[in-house]
């Protein structure tokens, strides 16, 4: 009889103490982390720390909405008293690069004439931005000429008709 009472007392005391403490910080931390991890593509490198029921969240959210969602999800976890959000917002993706501007054929032809003037063995023609070079040229001069032609912003420099001496 005495033993039964004692056991009951122990049971009551332990229950009361369990309720008063609530779930352990470590357990809360696991639960919050699991919830955040369940939202893939939203947070990069999310970490959760819980101390005395206060959950501190950090990581990089893709946007403000994601940040709010994560904070809400963390608050809903049993045992979380409050949430401190240290989330950063990811920088927006860079704009797509501007298309390459190709010099129009008329100014390009003029530039090609200027560039090839000192290389008498070669002939260059321009068609729709493509500079086609034919003839004979030394390797060193071809490098110089290619530098000059590339500087004119052509669509392409086609030297397949060249003989490199």
């Amino acid at each position, binding site marked *: 009889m005495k033993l039964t009472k004692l056991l009951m007392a122990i049971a009551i005391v332990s229950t009361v103490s369990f309720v008063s403490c609530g779930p352990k910080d470590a357990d809360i931390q696991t639960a919050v982390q699991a919830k955040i991890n369940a939202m893939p593509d939203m947070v990069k490198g999310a970490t959760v720390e819980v101390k005395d029921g206060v959950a501190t969240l950090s990581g990089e959210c893709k946007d403000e909405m994601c940040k709010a969602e994560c904070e809400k999800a963390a608050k809903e976890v049993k045992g979380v008293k409050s949430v401190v959000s240290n989330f950063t917002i990811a920088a927006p993706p860079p704009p797509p*690069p501007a*298309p*390459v501007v190709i010099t129009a054929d008329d100014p390009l032809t*003029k*530039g090609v*004439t*200027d*560039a090839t*003037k000192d290389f008498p063995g070669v002939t260059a023609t321009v068609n729709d931005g493509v500079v086609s070079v034919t003839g004979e040229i030394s*390797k060193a001069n*071809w*490098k*110089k000429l*290619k*530098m*000059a032609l*590339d*500087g*004119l*912003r*052509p*669509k*392409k*420099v*086609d*030297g*397949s008709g*060249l003989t*490199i001496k």
Partner: protein
Amino acid sequence: MALQDKYKELTDAATAAGISDLQVREQDNVLYIDGTAPSGAVKDQLWNIYEKIDPNFLAGDVVMNVNVNVAATVSKVKVTTESSNLNIRKGPGTDQPIVGKAAHGEIITLISQSTPQWWLVRTDDNEEGYAYAQYLTPEA
């Protein structure tokens, strides 16, 4: 993206060498590399890497438009032709009349860089006009 892989060493070097306003774009099977090099040596380095990947520059899959940054303080340029005199013309183009000549090795005054190809210069004889920039090297 295949071209970006082929020329990765080149574009990586361009990034590492501090090419300003660097743009690497692939369009219609040509890789366009644009930017401004801090020095002529950096531009040469990039062209040497390009040459290593495409030894005769015949693949026709790269247009590398890298100019050399010339500081605003530079006012003197050296005529670096092979050996001949450099024509100074009335306007920017080989179709323009010749108004003067600068000797190989001569140091002349740079007035402005009108275009990447044609710079406005003046000789000590007060001949003023446009010369092809490829044959002019800025004096430090």
